[in-house]
């Protein structure tokens, strides 16, 4: 399993727009580089990334070789209810990984 750093606020007010950050250890091999033997190194990138909030997809991304090694992605979601935020991604070798974080949403809505 790739090392990851997922940042989701543990608590939020209902209706608050919260920022989610993901830093994932992955070589993001472009498929355009040659190895020391002169042969092309096969492409191996995370090509699909998605975020679900209590099971419903709220964000996703199709990624291409221009994304850096150890990709970093940030986006937002509205804190609607307490529950689980799950981030999952798939690379060219077919590896899929999911990381989850709990979010507790307070009763008071934001003004």
């Amino acid at each position, binding site marked *: 399993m790739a090392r990851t*750093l997922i940042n989701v606020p543990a608590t939020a007010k209902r209706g608050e727009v919260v920022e989610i*950050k993901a*830093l994932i*250890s992955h*070589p993001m091999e472009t498929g355009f580089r040659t190895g020391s033997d002169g042969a092309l190194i096969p492409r191996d990138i995370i090509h699909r990334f998605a975020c679900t909030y209590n099971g419903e997809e709220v964000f996703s991304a199709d990624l291409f070789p221009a994304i850096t*090694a*150890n990709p*970093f992605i940030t986006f937002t979601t509205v804190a609607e209810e307490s529950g689980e935020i799950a981030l999952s991604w798939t690379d060219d070798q077919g590896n899929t990984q999911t990381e989850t974080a709990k979010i507790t949403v307070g009763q008071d809505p934001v003004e």
Partner: protein
Amino acid sequence: MTVRRSSLAAAVILLAGTALASDTDRRSGFDFMGPQTQAMQADDTANPGMLSVLDGEDLWNTPAGAANRSCADCHGDAATSMRGVATRYPSYDEKAKAPITLDQRILQCRADRQEAPPLAWESPDLLALSAYVAHQSRGLPVETGADPQLTPFIDQGRELFTQRQGQLDFSCADCHDANWGKRLGGAVIPQAHPTGYPIYRLEWQAMGSLQRRLRNCMAGVRAEPYGFGSPEHTELELFLMTRARGLPLETPGVRP
């Protein structure tokens, strides 16, 4: 390709008007970076070097070798036992009768205390352990070089730093003492204080040690780089750390 090469030649413009590095004007490589790269280092949730620190934390707690002991079995919580340790390295080793680097110290424990096979230089595991141990000293000032037994080795390191080398006939000091703050290609020449190691270097797209960084500088002037773990590297590192005394450690640093 042609475009890149000529744009580099055009970019090698030296900006005029910088002074020699004095004790009062010592700056980390961090200060010479653009705001985006600084932000990447400053935010632990955005700093790719933290991935390695977290790997190191796992390794710290995992039993290894014939002794089947983890680092934590002997050293406990690294936040306490390793706090400040990296600020004193390289330090004098009684057995070797010479200075050893933090990596060498970790490898010693791995060999003698864990009875585990050695980790290769620049291997992700060695970098991770080193990053995890050095991270415990983040923010603390460098203290390397206080031990008088180190003096001859520091002198030797200074010698290596000031001697001209390579086909281009440059010394480290030519760039890092006499021309810091000026541009070389796209890069600003820093003062070469090794305060962030191991670092996540954007050029490498990975973590790397100070030795790897120094080898890049030696390759840059067309000199034969010293081998990993060689006495020359330890002496240069010792000199550089002594020269950086008082500056805070930053591990994991991010550099272009």
